[in-house]
């Protein structure tokens, strides 16, 4: 081990942390190329400096990956925000709990990679331009990008590899970025030192999360030690650009992805192995919408049925948007064929937030789930979930009433207390241009 590189972005430990299959990673060479391009003045590497409070994990090649934990620019997921809003809300909740600084602004676009993988209606130049536009926006604010979506993460990792190794792609995308005003003042492309998924942040913060559980979760009577957990790793986090995702000696001796599994183990829940752990969920990008018989057949037969019969898990823990949606929404239909295997489904960060005492409806927003999460809450010791649900439903009624009466000022005042984000509505430009793409309410209400 201990390969010496002149690049400050490529480091290995002195000793192998676990048996390593691939010791000649082409991908790791990227960090040397990236440094050379920076030296030539072609790119600017958005470095993870001390202000981002870095932590360190290993990839499967043994490379030390740097994970920033503070001062983060939230690159949200459209599937999560549109469909599983408790997913990002749980991330923000933890950041508030740990007193971390972050920026969650409207000046971010989706990666557009879900659309690309589903329909092919884009191209590498467009994908690179979208990615670099978002990275430039983060860099401009001084907050380091944290990618919430697994597909964005996978796509950005791949796009970066293509960009670093292909001059023609850099030459194609640069004039576009110039027109957008998305190059540095001296005309360089901004590329982040590491592309970081939120599950890597959770993984790096697992000790702090476990501490919070001990301190606050247990004080509320929550106990996860009897909860049986099936882990589902998302394909686009660990199969796409496989050499850039955490592995750890404590998780299957470094032979399976470590994120999610490690935090669940740290919380003291029971991670139980099952035979189809390797399979995807059946999301398929286009399939979840337009080939649904495939998605539901695969999800039920290869995952839900197996997990129910082999290990009788209480919950499936995921770390991506599509998998959570697929497992969660494709249970009820199984009744049509006598294949109904009800099980709670949520992401690692949602489960962790519940364990640490977050409100199941206000924060974790379980209301939107179509699967049966109630038995899990009971088993975790959150036995007052009915009252908590009523409390949230009353909040919804209150909001609806204020809006009906046109009391927008009152509504905005209410949100200042209710919302997690502090300070309220903080953006990099102080909302100089307060207009949205859809003129939707209420944030952009003039």
């Amino acid at each position: 081990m201990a390969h010496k590189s002149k690049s400050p972005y490529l480091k290995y430990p002195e000793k192998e942390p676990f048996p390593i299959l691939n010791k000649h990673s082409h991908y790791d060479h990227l960090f040397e190329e990236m440094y050379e391009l920076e030296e030539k003045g072609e790119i600017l590497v958005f470095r993870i400096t001390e202000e981002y409070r870095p932590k360190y994990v290993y990839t499967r090649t043994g490379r030390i990956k740097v994970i920033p934990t503070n001062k983060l620019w939230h690159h949200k997921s459209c599937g999560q925000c549109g469909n599983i809003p408790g997913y990002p809300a749980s991330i923000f909740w933890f950041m508030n709990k740990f007193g971390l600084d972050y920026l969650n602004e409207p000046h971010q676009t989706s990666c557009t990679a879900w659309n690309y993988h589903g329909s092919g209606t884009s191209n590498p130049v467009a994908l690179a331009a979208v990615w670099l536009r978002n990275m430039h926006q983060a860099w401009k604010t001084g907050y380091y990008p944290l990618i919430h979506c697994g597909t964005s993460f996978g796509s950005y990792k791949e796009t970066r590899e293509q960009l670093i190794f292909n001059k023609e792609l850099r030459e194609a995308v640069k004039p576009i970025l110039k027109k957008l005003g998305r190059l540095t003042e001296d005309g360089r492309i901004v590329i982040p030192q590491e592309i970081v998924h939120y599950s890597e942040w959770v993984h790096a913060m697992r000790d702090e999360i476990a501490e919070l559980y001990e301190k606050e979760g247990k004080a509320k009577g929550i106990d996860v030690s009897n909860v049986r957990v099936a882990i589902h790793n998302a394909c686009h986090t660990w199969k796409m650009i496989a050499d850039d995702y955490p592995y750890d000696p404590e998780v299957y001796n470094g032979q399976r992805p470590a994120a999610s599994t490690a935090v669940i183990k740290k919380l003291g829940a029971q991670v139980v192995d099952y035979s189809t752990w390797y399979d995807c969920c059946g999301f398929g990008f286009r399939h979840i919408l337009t080939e649904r018989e495939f998605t539901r057949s695969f999800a039920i037969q290869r995952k839900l049925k197996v997990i129910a019969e082999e290990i009788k898990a209480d919950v499936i823990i995921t770390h991506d948007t599509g998998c959570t949606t697929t497992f969660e929404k494709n249970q009820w239909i199984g009744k049509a064929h006598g294949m109904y295997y009800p099980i709670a489904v949520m992401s690692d960060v949602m489960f962790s937030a519940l364990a640490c005492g977050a409100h199941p409806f206000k924060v974790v927003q379980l209301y939107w789930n179509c699967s049966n999460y109630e038995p899990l809450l009971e088993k975790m010791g959150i036995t007052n979930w009915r009252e908590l649900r009523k409390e949230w439903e009353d909040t919804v009624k209150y909001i609806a009433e204020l809006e009906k009466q046109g009391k927008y000022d009152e509504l905005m005042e209410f949100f200042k207390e209710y919302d997690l984000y502090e300070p309220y509505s903080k953006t990099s430009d102080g909302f100089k241009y307060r207009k949205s793409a859809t003129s939707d309410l209420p944030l952009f209400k003039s």
Partner: protein
Amino acid sequence: MAEQTQVRKYGYNIPISEKTLQVPWEEKVRVIEEVKSDFRFKEYLFGCLNCGVCTASCPSNRFFDYSPREIVQRFLENDIDVLYDMMHEYIWACSQCFTCWIRCPFVNNPGGLVIIMREVAVRNAFEATKDLLKPYGRVLLKVMTTGNQLSADMLQPDFFPDWGPKMLDNMENLRAKRMAIPFDVGKSVKTAWEVSLQTAIEMYQIWRETGIFEMLERLDPNLYNVIMDIVEENEERWEELMEEMEEAEA
């Protein structure tokens, strides 16, 4: 045509449609060359042991007539007819999970080859591709006009009866429920989060500069017109806003 079919040396059981057989040979070669000239192609295709581990672990293979091994083999054999035929329907079965990529001992990326083939199929506006992507129009409309791919208002229970009765409940009083999401930019109904107009305008520039709008026009002219109406309206709003800002500063 029959002659061309006969010269295929290997007896793989992939039927070639009549439509493909009727397409001039030069045209089929042109399309396949377009795939092979993509800069990613050389990074996605290496040797192949024919071990079949990609197909054995492929989710789509379990339910469709689809095999990633065949994709790799057909390219290695340069089997123009079969490849051209695959580009009309076969490739759309792939789930894009990239299990094939992580498992291949030669680091071939059949899922990556498929995405290049899909892109070329879309760029050439194949009829089968147009039909196949028709139900996907709502996503295209959303992503092209807002930069978001999904929003709460797209998940109408009528479209997803198979997701169960809780979906019906979720969609009642949707607007107030969205506002009860506890972070400001997440409260929108028409987008996943509120995307600033400035961001959307930058997206439109990217679509223009990279030929995405042109490609959409060939693929679905009606959808293209709807998209462009929204894009132009937003661009006008942006210009007005800029003028207002200039006046205010003056």
